[in-house]
């Protein structure tokens, strides 16, 4: 199946094209620190470039896949809105996949034997975190302060999936809070490691495993409610 996969959960823009023979082409944009993310301006040009490289047309695509986060709200909406526009235009199935799972999948694929803690910088001193091992998901993705991560991992009793795991943390959240993670005995690859980056190929391949639901609109997995709603609820007591 020919799949176009995009991810905009982090400041980076990642695009992948899975070809009929199972090989993948990839392109990405990584803004320099402090630079504005290029989601709106880079996503479609990168996708167009991959199609050209592969000698394909838009209507060669058989499925569109999009990372639904969690991550930056505006970034996610640009990715999902673009993907939905493409899918609608081509009458194709759109599949939303977890951006955290894409990170974890890469680390496991590259030989991590223990568990992978995928962590995306959630700002406000928090990370969006999810845990995976080769056997599957260990806990559901959530937003939390890095200090609470230890509790999450330690409070699992003997015999749980968490026991005796060697944890590897990947993602821009793992880089930002490296000392917190390492202080808990969680390994974090060097900042330059490609394991910290979400890749379009993983978005494509994850989408192969998912049954698509055309009636179920793909939306970002925000994991956080809008501030205004929380404030309103707080004011109401």
């Amino acid at each position: 199946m020919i799949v176009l996969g995009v991810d905009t959960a982090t400041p980076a823009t990642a695009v992948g094209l899975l070809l009929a023979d199972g090989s993948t082409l990839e392109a990405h944009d990584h803004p320099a620190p402090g630079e504005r993310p290029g989601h709106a301006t880079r996503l479609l040009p990168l996708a167009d470039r991959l199609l050209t490289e592969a000698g394909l047309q838009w209507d060669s695509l058989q499925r569109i896949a999009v990372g639904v986060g969690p991550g930056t709200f505006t970034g996610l909406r640009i990715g999902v809105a673009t993907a939905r526009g493409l899918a609608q235009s081509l009458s194709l199935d759109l599949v939303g996949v977890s951006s955290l799972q894409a990170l974890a999948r890469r680390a496991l694929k590259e030989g991590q034997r223990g568990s992978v803690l995928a962590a995306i910088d959630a700002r406000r001193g928090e990370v969006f975190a999810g845990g995976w091992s080769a056997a599957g998901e260990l806990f559901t993705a959530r937003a939390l302060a890095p200090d609470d991560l230890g509790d999450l991992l330690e409070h699992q009793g003997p015999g749980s999936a968490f026991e005796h795991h060697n944890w590897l943390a990947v993602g821009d959240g793992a880089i930002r809070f490296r000392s917190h993670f390492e202080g808990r005995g969680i390994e974090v690859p060097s900042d330059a490691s490609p394991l910290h980056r979400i890749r379009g190929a993983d978005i494509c391949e994850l989408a192969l495993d998912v049954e698509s639901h055309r009636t179920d609109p793909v939306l970002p997995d925000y994991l956080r409610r809008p501030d205004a709603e929380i404030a309103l609820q707080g004011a109401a007591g």
Partner: protein
Amino acid sequence: MNVLAIESSCDDTCAAVVQGDGQVLANVISSQGVHSRFGGVVPEIASRHHLELIDLVVLQALAEAGLSLDDIGLVAATRGPGLVGALLVGFSYAKGLAAAHRLAFAPVDHLQGHVAANFLRTEQGQFEPPFICLIASGGHTLIAHVREREGFEVLGRTLDDAAGEAFDKGARMLGLGYPGGAALERLAAGGDPAAFDFPAGGARPRAGMGVGRIEFARSLDFSFAGLKTALLYRVRELSESELATLAPDLAASYQAAIVDSLIARCEQALKVTGLERLAVGGGVAANGELRRRLASMGATVHVPAPILCTDNAAMIASAARFCSALAYPAYLPLDVYATGESAA
């Protein structure tokens, strides 16, 4: 040629299909209606709703037009000004929709859209340039000289609040909730517009710019902040029972001050340009007092149907017919803009 347009600059998710000759085939507006409990539009919530609604709104517009994407020759979307997060949903979706069909794409300025609402074929007929166009809504208030269908020149704009914003803020001070423009108008219907002497939105000098009262009064810019403050002081002076009695008078006087300001600027713009034709757009165009005053101005006044005055995608499609569309793939790297003109 059929134009499919998307508008998502504020809290309405809109899609429309318009023919090349200005005939509206579909004009779908999904008002979110979730912002009243917050006392104003919350950008993050508006953006989330746009994304939930966009597919359905576009599909409905195509269905109502009885067309498929294969019948569309040009895709258009509002590029700005507006809420960036909200614009990005409609604009990104539209770019994706156009790209996969390799269609031409027109990025449209929202204000040009309000102007171009006058070029649509409707029961009132099309209104052709040259004319003066007043655009007054909750997000913008400006007066434009429209010489041709492709663009306009801004003669004056608000220096602070928009006229619709002034209505809403006044309504809130009078305890009428949000959005309160229509409620304020209803309350004003039973009041005396001459009961209170409010400054007519043109009597306040441009703060810190050394432009005097008289010079500002001559300019075509608007200012509603002083008026809002005047109402606030009046409301504070009054006891609760006095306020209950005088609320209709306050509303009527406040509304009269806003309308006076709008009318005065329109008259001035017509005088300066020597034109006798005036078009009005934006949500404030629905205000009955403004419509009465417009009707007695002596100029030829064109007010599109209410659904074409408030934010809608038919007006964006209309504008797209007269701007130079971009062929695939030139539009793929385009971004939206929050204020002013596009940077590139």
